[in-house]
């Protein structure tokens, strides 16, 4: 407080009542009475003896003596849970567990190798006899019958060949007799016309040569062999010097059995074959 001011400088704030009360006012609300009380807002707050007269509100007295120990309070609420404790030490190894349950059955194993071949079985019983075979097929139609000899009535066709043998099993019945062969067409298979006196050949078919073995004795040789059983026709004619037509028809015979390669013929004027004679026209025709 080193600053000293003139009271007048605070005239606006401090008033003094000199009317006998001697009150000193400060501003408009605080007044100190002449008797020594202090008033605030017209309300005595401190008596001239120094006792507090004002409102006790908001006033705190000096601390009193310590009171007696109060009754024990009610138990407090449960405190918050404490922090988790540190991890404890590892426990000792436990005892060995019980034996586990039995495992499931395993998968089926792969197939085993094939076994060795068994021993040969005993011979089976003899089978029953087979059924009788069916009848053989009918025989093929008989070959064309041979043509009958010249002049005579033609011979009947040869009997057909036998039927084929039946199928396996009991032998089949013999096939039916083939149908009678039809009369075949006459086919000339060789022929020749030659001069009897010297064997000179006029014309021929399938004849390779004519051999003169002697007077009236000739062999006609075939170029290709004929099938056996062929038929033949022989003719011999003599022509006189006076006319163009033959005057005599002579006898011609075969000598021996004709073969498939040749036929031998004999010519004669007389049927008793007393002498052989050459013919001017001699024809040998073979056919079937």
């Amino acid at each position: 407080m080193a600053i000293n001011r003139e009271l007048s400088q605070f005239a606006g704030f401090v008033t003094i009542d000199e009317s006998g009360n001697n009150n000193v006012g400060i501003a408009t609300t605080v007044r100190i009475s002449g008797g020594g009380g202090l008033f605030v807002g017209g309300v005595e707050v401190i008596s001239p003896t120094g006792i507090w007269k004002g409102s006790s509100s908001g006033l705190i007295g000096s601390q009193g003596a310590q009171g007696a120990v109060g009754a024990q309070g009610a138990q407090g609420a449960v405190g918050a849970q404490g922090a988790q404790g540190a991890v404890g030490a590892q426990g000792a190894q436990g005892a060995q567990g019980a034996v586990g349950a039995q495992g499931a059955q395993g998968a089926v194993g792969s197939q085993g190798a094939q076994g060795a071949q068994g021993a040969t079985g005993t011979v089976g019983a003899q089978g029953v006899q087979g059924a009788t075979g069916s009848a053989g097929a009918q025989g093929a139609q008989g070959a064309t019958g041979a043509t009958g000899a010249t002049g005579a009535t033609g011979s009947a066709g040869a009997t057909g060949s036998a039927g084929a043998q039946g199928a396996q099993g009991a032998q089949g019945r013999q096939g039916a007799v083939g149908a009678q062969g039809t009369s075949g067409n006459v086919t000339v298979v060789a022929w020749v016309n030659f001069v009897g006196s010297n064997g000179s050949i006029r014309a021929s078919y399938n004849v390779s040569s004519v051999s003169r073995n002697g007077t009236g004795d000739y062999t006609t040789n075939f170029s290709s062999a004929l099938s056996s059983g062929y038929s033949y026709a022989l003719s011999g004619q003599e022509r006189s010097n006076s006319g163009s037509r033959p005057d005599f028809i002579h006898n011609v015979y075969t000598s021996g059995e004709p073969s498939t390669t040749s036929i031998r013929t004999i010519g004669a004027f007389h049927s008793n074959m007393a002498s052989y004679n050459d013919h001017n026209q001699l024809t040998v025709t073979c056919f079937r």
Partner: protein
Amino acid sequence: MDQLILHENEKGGVTLCRPTPEALETYTATEIGFKDATTGKPFWVVSESNIPSEFLFFDAWELDLEALGEPTGYGMDYEDWVQEYKK
């Protein structure tokens, strides 16, 4: 002249074999001789000019083997001839 085939026959006489014109179109006289002469017997192929032209005494003919010389061939079995010469 035609070619003829001569050979001896079973009577000891001569056989005069004359090939046909149709056969000569395919075979020679010798090939025909192999077939038509007596099997196994010799034959000679001769020209017609070399034989007598008169046949009146043909049955009296004889083969002049000396004049004929070596035979042209010998008659063959037909089946053998087919195998050898058949055309």
